[in-house]
């Protein structure tokens, strides 16, 4: 196909300022168009490559849309049972203390079935990094309600909107575990705009560096979209996320250097 606006004089290897890292396996991602998983994966791989950690990295993938993460990330990985990734990572880090060990989990994995494993890995202060992709829905299984689904938000198991009376309030698991002394660094980011992508990459890098220093558990929540589950276009879903998810799940640092960051309370929408 003829490229009308190509500048072949610039398209030289020495002029490359951005190229997808080779640590992303060269194959199409199975994620929906516009899904933040692909971006989060790539930022994590960039950090691992730049820090020269490939030979020392062991990742644990969840059950959820990213169950196939191990097919896309060119690092050694283990696929955990639903919710159990922090248990795997606990043993792996205890047995390979000089390795970079992370889990990559969704909201059902981390805050529903895996609640005990999440809380106890945090409580023990395991020296691992937990990456938590929160899109307020169960994507892989067809859009059911998640612990982090917002009040009034529709899903296939809350077709009239989440009713907090019968279904409970959204679980702010990140704020809960931030109070545990074994947790050192907690932050909430997103990957839907370039600046947020840059901030997420910085957060991943910080967590990897802190793990080298044995500081305790680093927990990075990425509030992300699920345009399929939310039944929107990708661009619409990012806008909806800004307008609805961010007021509830506020972006920014929650705990730094082992100390909670002072924050004003969010008011839950009725």
């Amino acid at each position, binding site marked *: *196909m003829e*490229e*009308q*606006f*190509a*500048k072949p*004089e*610039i*398209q*030289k290897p020495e*002029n*490359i*300022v*951005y*190229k*997808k890292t080779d640590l*992303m396996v060269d194959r*199409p*991602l199975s*994620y*929906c*168009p*516009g*899904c*933040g*998983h*692909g*971006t989060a994966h*790539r930022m994590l791989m960039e950090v691992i490559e730049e820090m020269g950690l490939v030979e020392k990295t062991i990742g644990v993938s969840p059950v959820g849309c990213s169950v196939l993460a191990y097919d896309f990330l060119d690092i050694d990985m283990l696929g955990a049972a639903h919710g159990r990734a922090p248990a795997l990572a606990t043993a792996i880090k205890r047995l390979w203390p000089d390795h970079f060990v992370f889990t990559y989990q969704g909201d059902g994995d981390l805050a529903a079935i895996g609640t005990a494993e999440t809380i106890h890995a945090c409580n023990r202060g395991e020296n691992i990094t937990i990456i938590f992709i929160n899109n307020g829905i169960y994507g892989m299984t067809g859009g059911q309600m998640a612990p982090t689904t917002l009040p009034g938000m529709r899903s296939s198991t809350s077709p009239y909107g989440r009713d907090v009376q019968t279904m409970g309030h959204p679980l702010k698991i990140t704020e809960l575990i931030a109070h545990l002394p074994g947790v050192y660094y907690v932050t909430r980011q997103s*990957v*839907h*705009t*370039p600046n947020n*992508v*840059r901030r997420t990459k910085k957060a991943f890098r910080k967590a990897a560096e802190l793990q080298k220093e044995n500081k305790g558990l680093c927990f990075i929540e990425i509030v992300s979209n699920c345009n399929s589950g939310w039944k929107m*276009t*990708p*661009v619409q879903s*990012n806008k909806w996320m800004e307008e609805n998810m961010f007021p509830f799940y506020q972006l920014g640092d929650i705990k730094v250097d082992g100390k909670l960051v002072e924050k004003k309370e969010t008011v839950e929408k009725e």
Partner: protein
Amino acid sequence: MAKIIGDIVINTERCKGCEVCVAACPLAVIAMSKEVNSKGYHFAMKVNNECTGCTNCALVCPDGVITVYRAKVAIA
């Protein structure tokens, strides 16, 4: 005098037409094609020469289909 010139190369076969890059570009360089790729997606394409190689589009692309070039070019 020198000017920063940028260019992007899009892997149109891997693009899923999510359009997130369109909003990310500060210079409206990207729009979606009328054609579709072999998967049936409209794909991202350049519609002007204004690219400065800022990498915003490539950063935000969930499928990592964009490669960005940037060079300082002397202006005569």
